């Protein structure tokens, strides 16, 4: 799994992709899903498993948990008894009827009691394919279990939900992200400042994959990781900057606000979408009446939409700032 990059000077940097390196291999390593993990561990203890349905946003540990279950149940032979189908694979009704059914039919290898089929992004299965799955799930329970993962369990048809134990993965708390980031940094002999951790928390928004990627990217450009490295590498404006942009605009000083905007767009090289996204997130901390806030968020959405339709990001964002100025005037 080691990736070696040879630079021209014969100079060698050993690098690995950290999200792979630090992917949890044991259920105990899965962070931030304590209750779920506790219940799942009791399955391991009894060496038995119902069909499982994991639902939750990306980067919270659904795949990691599934792989950990397989590793803990099957030990060495986990690869033979665990198969994973992604949305990137063809997954129409024919796959369910041939590939999945055949895997489900055959007996487990290496003394395992059963096999596990992991259907990642199961909500991408057509509903026909989902209904073709349901009898297969029941028929071969003596040698096969299914783990389905999805972003929204409402996209999974009722008959399948009824056959599964449903576990909801919540977005990770900031503490959980911080803890893991510190752990990784420690392992890699990295110095990370507290404001660096805070920056990662802000950037990750509960997505561990994003957090670790940001950490690794920042580690390439700096020895000690401060917030600036994080913001720079992830093309994120500092939260204070965004807040300042908003308050200046609300105060009605349009040209001052536009200077802030230019510095974000031109000097820091952020895309218009990034800026709009951050403005949206900052809105909840701005001190304005809630009614105004909802109105402004409607405008933000409209501008976000026009960004994709229009040609000039700056014009659209200036329009947004003008709206802020108008709204600020009405408040006073």
């Amino acid at each position, binding site marked *: 799994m080691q990736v070696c990059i040879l630079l021209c000077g014969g100079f060698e940097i050993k690098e690995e992709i950290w999200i792979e390196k630090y992917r949890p291999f044991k259920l105990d390593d899965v962070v931030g899903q304590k209750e779920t993990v506790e219940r799942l561990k009791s399955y391991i203890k009894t060496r038995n498993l119902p069909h499982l349905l994991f639902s939750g946003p990306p980067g919270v540990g659904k795949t990691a948990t599934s792989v950990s279950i397989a590793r803990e149940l099957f030990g060495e032979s986990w690869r033979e008894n665990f198969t994973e189908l992604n949305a990137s694979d063809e997954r129409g009704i024919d796959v369910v009827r041939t590939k999945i059914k055949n895997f489900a039919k055959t007996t487990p290898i290496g003394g395992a009691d059963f096999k596990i089929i992991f259907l990642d992004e199961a909500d991408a299965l057509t509903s026909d394919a989902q209904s073709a799955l349901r009898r297969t799930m029941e028929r071969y329970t003596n040698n096969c279990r299914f783990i389905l993962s999805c972003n929204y369990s409402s996209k999974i048809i009722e008959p399948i939900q009824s056959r599964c134990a*449903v576990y909801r993965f919540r977005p990770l708390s900031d503490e959980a992200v911080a803890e893991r980031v510190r752990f990784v940094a420690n392992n890699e002999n990295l110095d990370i400042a507290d404001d660096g951790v805070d920056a990662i928390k802000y950037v990750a928004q509960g997505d561990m994959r994003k957090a670790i990627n940001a950490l690794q990217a920042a580690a390439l450009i700096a020895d000690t990781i401060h917030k600036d490295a994080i913001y720079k590498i992830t093309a994120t404006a500092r939260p204070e900057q965004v807040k300042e942009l908003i308050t200046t605009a609300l105060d009605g000083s349009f040209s001052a606000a536009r200077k802030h905007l230019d510095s974000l767009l031109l000097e820091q090289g952020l895309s218009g979408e990034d800026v709009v996204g951050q403005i949206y997130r900052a809105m909840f901390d701005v001190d304005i009446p*809630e009614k105004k806030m909802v109105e402004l968020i409607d405008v933000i959405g409209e501008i976000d939409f026009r960004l994709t339709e229009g040609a000039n990001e700056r014009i659209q964002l200036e329009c947004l700032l003008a709206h802020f100025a108008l709204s600020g005037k009405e408040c006073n």
Partner: protein
Amino acid sequence: MTVQMEWAEKYRPVSLSDVVGHKKVIDDLRNWGEQWEFGTPEKRAVVLHGQAGIGKTSSAHALARDMNWEVIELNASDQRTAGVIEKIAGSASTMKTLTGTSDKRLIILDEADNLHGNSDRGGARAIVDVIKKASQPIVLIANDIYGLSSTVRSLCLELKFGSVQSRSMVPALKKIAAQEDVMCGVGVIEKIAESADGDFRSAVNDLQAIAMGRTEINIEDISTSERDNKESIFKVVGRIFKGKDVSSALEATYNLDETPEDLIHWVDENLPYQYTGKGEEALTPDIIAGYSYLSRSDRFLGRVRRRQNYRMWRYAGMLMTGGTVVSKSRVRGGFVKYQPPSLWRKMGQMRSRRNMRNNIAVKIGSHCNESMRYSRLEVAGMYSRLIQEDEYAADVVAVLGLDMDEMLHMVGAKKVTKKLQAVYDDAQKKRQVFIPADEPAFFVEKAAPKKDPSQLSFDSLPASNNATLDSAFGKGFPNKDEGATPAKKEVAAKPQKTLFDF
């Protein structure tokens, strides 16, 4: 090393008497099964339908075991083209069993409402054929009865499985817990039964999930694996309608396992009931403001759908939650129950009505050699006018081969009256004359005018007569009533040879 089974499989009912709930339906099913002991019953197939996890498949298998029948099962995990169905179910349904251990074999077509358009081409027609020719019992299983064509339904005895009452689940769950040596605290079983929402299989699964690795379960243990869907959506809806705080309403949706596309239906359904209080007009300014936000929210949902730009969901979510929160002028006291979206139910009903209308149009179309669309838009109205005239009703029903539901739909009646029943019976008698009984009806409908010898007399109708009828039709289209009247006169002269027979 013992492999623990899933409890839902392990405790599948062995006999019909073990099935939880559904007393009446089970009796009907057993009666139907027993009829087979004395020859072929009138309906050769039953269709069991109802929501997921209430025992449809289990009942079918239990029936076979009770009657000592062999079982052949075809479900959606098998390919089910016309060829496959005919090969497996067709031969099985007409031949005697090979082993001779029992004299009947039960054919179970699971998920019969789920034939795949492409991979299962022709499957639906094959099912009709198989049922018609069967000399062996057939059970069809479906979640949605309207997913089956009306032809199939008319051939089957329909048995509806309602949802399992939570109070009848409780003793069954307790029995399972006792057999698995799991001690249950007070209220645990009741809670599981409650949250399963009529779905017995998920109740058993939940019980197993909670009990795994424990010998004792208490009410606190439930929370982790609960199916909390319903509960949390009510909490979110409550925050939206009763709360004053935008961010807390929005935050509540983060933990909700519903897409904004589903949530908006909830808000939409409840908004008019929630934002009007005692002594207020039905349409308060709050409702108007709320709908203006919902409309803007929907605009973003549309952008997501058209452009696959899922970033827009956050604005839609904000407007439907926060917008609704800020559009109330005050928090109204008193509790008005939150309703699940009626739109979904209505869409289900509409789909069945549309299917019915299309089915009728196909029948008319094949009779008049017109497209389904044309028949539905232009001709169906006239036929339904004719069917309301006593003189022609039976003939129309017979010639088009309408079943009872379709006839009711065309007449516009809700219930079967004596008179309609008489018309229908009369039509069935006439149909016996038109169509030899052993041939599938839909073949004959097209071929009858040319091939069937008993129809020959109609072909010899004077050509001029046909021509006048045609012109009467031609003129009649713009105004249905006028069109029907001259046609009626022509036919009135020859009551035996109706105009539908050419």
